[in-house]
Structure formats: structure tokens, C-alpha cells
């Protein structure tokens, strides 16, 4: 008994050890090196010049704005597409639920590079989408989908939709169906049942999904590079350009750090507000 209890104390540490060591090696160390190099000039002297350069030149600064805007639109689009899907998943019978689940996560098994090339074919001026729209008489000129923000958002939504659907479906699934019945008995229409009961109770899943999709799409490289090309410059493509093409490691590091800070900022907002959105749940835990 005593033995097993003492084992239980160090067992979690032991189990977490390899993972933690790996994360320190591949995440913390590079970030520290990156941070260090972003504050050094060519003579290894401390400097803020790289950051000053980023925020003083509109060309660089607008890249950050591009990234934020793309991540924002991707997140909003993902929410709008994922919510009905997640709701269906949570309320359908297990057969349908599994079908939707598989259809949702199946694209994850295909490389983002391959999918982006696929979208290139679909989205280009003479591609199937523009051809169909022209044939239907909906447009006269082909829409500029490829190498535009629209194309990048479409590609990003496709890649990150599962990260929105899964937490959302699990949050909706946890909502007791009798709450909706109770609301119905009290006179709430289907729309008001959604607004007053389902939506507020799914906020934890919504917030988790939005944070995942936002941070993932703001740091995505392949999709903006292949679907935006030179026309859509985002933070990750700028980092690659600075480091790989221009060999400016220090400025590339500074841009990386800014991107990392933005992502961390989003995470912090999530942690800070999640507790507020769900104070009823955390307070309930204390009683139970």
C-alpha cells in the first residue's frame, strides 16, 4: 500500500519525462536560440534594430496584418462550417456520427502539399470551379481564386476544419438533451433553444476550436505559399524568404519571435477568458 502510493507519486513524472525532454529539445531550445539571435546585430552586440525595422516599415508591418486577417477569416469560416457539422455529429445516431467523423478527419491523412496542389487545380482561372460558375451564367469573368486571399482561406479552412469540428462536437455532445426539452416546455423556439442553451454551453468547445484554428493558420506556411504565391505575403512565408533567400537570420528570427508572441497572446486570451465563459462549470466542480 505504502509502496504503491510512493510509486504513484513519481510515476507521472517518469511517464511525462521523455515527452517533456523531447519538447524542451525541439521547442524550447530553438525558441531560446531564435530569441537570442533576434536581439543580436552582425557584430554580436545587443540591439532592437530588427524589431524597429519590422514595425517601422509598412511593407513588413502589413505582412503581420495579412496574417492576422487570414487567420481571422479562416477561423470565422471554420466556425460557420463546423458548427452544423458538429451539431449533426453530436445528435445523430452512432452510424451517421462515425461517417461524419471519418469524412472530417480523412483529409488529415493526405499531405498538405498534395492538397494544396489539388486546390491549385480546382481554383485556377480555367479550373473546374470557374468553369462551372461561367457555364451556369453566374459570372462573366473568371473569379480570381488562386493566388488571392480567398484561395488561401479556402485552403486553410480545408486543412484545419477538423480541429474545429472535434472539440465542438465533443462540447455539444456533453450537453444534456433534456435541457433542450426543458427549454421547449418553457416556450423556447428551436432558434431560441440554440441561442440560449446550446450555443452558450458549447462555448468551451468553440473557444478551444477557434484557438487551435487561429494559431495553426497564422503559422501555416505551405498553404499560403502554394495558394497565395508571391501575391499573398504572410509571416511564415516572410520568415522563409528572409532566412532561405536573403540569408538574414537575425531579421528572420525577429519576425519568427513576433509571430510566436502573437500565437502565445491568443493562447493567453483563451486561458484568461475560458474560465470566465465557463465559471458556472468550474464553480459546479467544487460542489461535486
Amino acid at each position, binding site marked *: 500500500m505504502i509502496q504503491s502510493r510512493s510509486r504513484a507519486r513519481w510515476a507521472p513524472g517518469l511517464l511525462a519525462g521523455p515527452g517533456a525532454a523531447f519538447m524542451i529539445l525541439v521547442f524550447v531550445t530553438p525558441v531560446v536560440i531564435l530569441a537570442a539571435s533576434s536581439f543580436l546585430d552582425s557584430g554580436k552586440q545587443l540591439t532592437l534594430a530588427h524589431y524597429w525595422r519590422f514595425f517601422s516599415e509598412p511593407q513588413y508591418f502589413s505582412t503581420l496584418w495579412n496574417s492576422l486577417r487570414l487567420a481571422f477569416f479562416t477561423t470565422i469560416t471554420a466556425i460557420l462550417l463546423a458548427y452544423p457539422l458538429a451539431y449533426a455529429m453530436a445528435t445523430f445516431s452512432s452510424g451517421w456520427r462515425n461517417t461524419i467523423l471519418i469524412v472530417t478527419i480523412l483529409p488529415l491523412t493526405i499531405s498538405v502539399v498534395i492538397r494544396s496542389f489539388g486546390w491549385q487545380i480546382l481554383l485556377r482561372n480555367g479550373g473546374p470551379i470557374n468553369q462551372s460558375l461561367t457555364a451556369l451564367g453566374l459570372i462573366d469573368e473568371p473569379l480570381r481564386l488562386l493566388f488571392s486571399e480567398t484561395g488561401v482561406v479556402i485552403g486553410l479552412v480545408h486543412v484545419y476544419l477538423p480541429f474545429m469540428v472535434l472539440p465542438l462536437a465533443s462540447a455539444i455532445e456533453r450537453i444534456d438533451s433534456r435541457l433542450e426539452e*426543458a427549454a*421547449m*416546455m*418553457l*416556450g423556447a423556439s428551436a432558434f431560441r433553444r440554440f441561442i*440560449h442553451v446550446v450555443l452558450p454551453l458549447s462555448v468551451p468547445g468553440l473557444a478551444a476550436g477557434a484557438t487551435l484554428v487561429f494559431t495553426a493558420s497564422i503559422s501555416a506556411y505551405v498553404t499560403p505559399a502554394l495558394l497565395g504565391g508571391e501575391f499573398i505575403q504572410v509571416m511564415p512565408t516572410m520568415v522563409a524568404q528572409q532566412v532561405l533567400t536573403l540569408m538574414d537570420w537575425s531579421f528572420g528570427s525577429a519576425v519568427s519571435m513576433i509571430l510566436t508572441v502573437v500565437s502565445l497572446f491568443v493562447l493567453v486570451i483563451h486561458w484568461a477568458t475560458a474560465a470566465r465563459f465557463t465559471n*458556472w*462549470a468550474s464553480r*459546479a466542480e467544487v*460542489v461535486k
Partner: protein
Amino acid sequence: MPGPEDAMKHQFQGSADVEVDLEVRDLSKEYDGFRALDQVDLTVCKGELISLLGPSGCGKTTLLRSIAGLVDPSQGAIRIKGKEILGIAPHQRNVGFVFQSYALFPHMTVRENVGFGLKMRGDKRAHTGPAVDRSLETVKMQHLAHRYPGELSGGQQQRIAIARSIVLNPTLLLLDEPFAALDRALRDHMQMEVKALQRRLGITTLFVTHDQDEALRISDRIAVMNAGRIEQIDTPIGLYKNPRTPFVLNFIGKSNVFSGRVLQATEGGATIDLGGHVIEVPLPAGAGLVTGSKAMISVRPERIVAESAAPREGEMGIPALVTDAVFLGGSLELHLRSAISEQPIVISRQGGDPSGIQEGSEVWLSWQQGDVLTFPASASPGAEL
């Protein structure tokens, strides 16, 4: 034997014209060939507290949910205050529903929960209004109005669920297994509290339970349900004294059951051979017992008398051996073995005074003719519980 309508009138003796709040007529519900409800009839008067009692799967919850509008019956009629409500939206039936799990909105405070129905009716500031205060006062929960449901105990949650329903002044209050989620001590307390509340508000109430003690404790009348049908509706006393079927007999209270053979059946009575002892039993009309048929005889534990002295000539006396004497405080329970029954016979003596009878004593059992309930032996499907 009194029918349900008689029992109802009996219950509300004195009031010249009894107002009927709920009528269920010929109600059936089928799920993929399974009959959850089978031609159910039920009449509930204003102010009555009726329980739907039965084992799980007997259709009691389906009946309740049909009245609420959460289930669509396959056929039949439901009228509230004489008005047909099938096809009317649940919230327009003027029915309050308290769920087994209470189904309080976890993200709303107590006040917002209680005000929800009023808010849906267009009163945006309802949760701060006087109606919510009155409702919370009724269930003595004003002091916890700002809390979230998760911060309340089971009993408190139940009160809020009731407050949330009664704030809309429903004609009918429906409760689905309202006490099942509470622990024993709290359950007894809440049963009495809900009954007192129901009396005070005079609100017609229907509640579902599988617990006979609960049904006996708080109901004006009990509808015993089995396999989608109402087997019998009567007052608790009426059901205990005059169960119409073996199912009801077994479901309400304890009973000793013996099997015997009808030696002679006449109008109003029969002589029955009970393992060599010939006893006389009264026979209600239509009991279905004929000479030579097998009969099921039942006597309640407190109706059997055990005496140490041998019976005098011509008196009833079935010899039995006391195998166990259990002192239960207010009463003494004797377990006996006798030739007339394969099962141990259980009798209960009020006062708990053993008066010389103990384990190993040889006694003679007797009972009054009127305390015997007799059923045809073939009519006992579902009697085994």
C-alpha cells in the same frame, strides 16, 4: 369493487361538481411494433396528486411525456380542462414538467433559470421581476437566487426545477421520477415537502415513480401500470385492500401467497382446499373461480394471527413452525414454515411484543375471512416480481 371513477368521487366527497383537469382517453403509443402505451384511460381532477406507478418499461414515463407533448401518441385523446391538446405545441399546453435530472440550465443562475419561461413569453426583465421572487419564495430558495445550479444540492436543484415550472402557473404539473436522484433521507423529506407544496398551491399533479413506498406516501390516488396499461387506479388504501390483479397485489405492499384448489364456488363465496386445510373465502363478482379450478390466495402479513394455543373445535388453525422472529422496533416479524406453503410465511405483529412466541415455537395460524384475497391461479402473469 369500486372502479376508478368511484374512487375519485370518494376522494373528493363533498364537492358537488368535481372539476376535471386532465382526461386521457384510449391513448396508445407504438415504437417499432412495441406497445409502450396500450389504450390508457385516465381522469384526473383539479387539485389531485396522482402517481403513475410501475416497473421500468411499463409505459409510465411515455404517458407523462405524451401529456407534456414530448412524445407523440399513435392514437387516442388527451384533454386538459376539456380542451384537446394533441397537436398543440408543448409550451401551449400550460403544463409544467420537472425532469428526473431537473434539467436546470447550468450556465444560468437560479434566478435566470426560474425567469426563463417568462422571458420566452416576452418579458425580458423577468428574472428580476416579482413573479420570480414569489416562485422562489414558494420553494424557500430566495437566499440562493444568485447561485448556479452546479453549486446547489440535489434537493435544492429540485426545488428550483419546481419553481421554474410553477412560475408559469401551469394547469398541470408533471414530475418524472422526481425523487430518484436523491439519497434516502433527503428523499423522504422532499416527498413530504412536495406534497405540502402541492396542497398549498392546489396544483393538479401527476408524477411518475417505480417506488411503491413513495407512491403510497404522497399520492391521493395511484395508477398502477404494467405492460403499457393501467391495471388499477385507486387510493393507496383502496389498492392495498382491494387489488384487482395479482400484479397490483404484489406491487403494493407485501403479501403471503398460497395456492389452493376450489372445492366449491358459489355466488359470493367459495371453499378452498389449502394443502389439506379447508378454508372459506369471499368471492367478489367476476373473480373467475369455478369449482375444481386452481386458486391463488393471498393474506397480508399483518392480517395473519399466530397463537400458541390450539384452536377450539370448528375454528380455523393451520399449524406452523416459527423459524425466525425479527424484532423491528414497532413491530415483530415472524417467519414461519407450514405445510400449506412452500415459501416461508411472513407475518407482522404490531407492538413488537413476542408474548411467548419465539424461534422454534409451534403456533396456529388464522385470519378473518374478509382479509383473504383470491385470484384464479392462471391469472398471474407478471405476478412474479
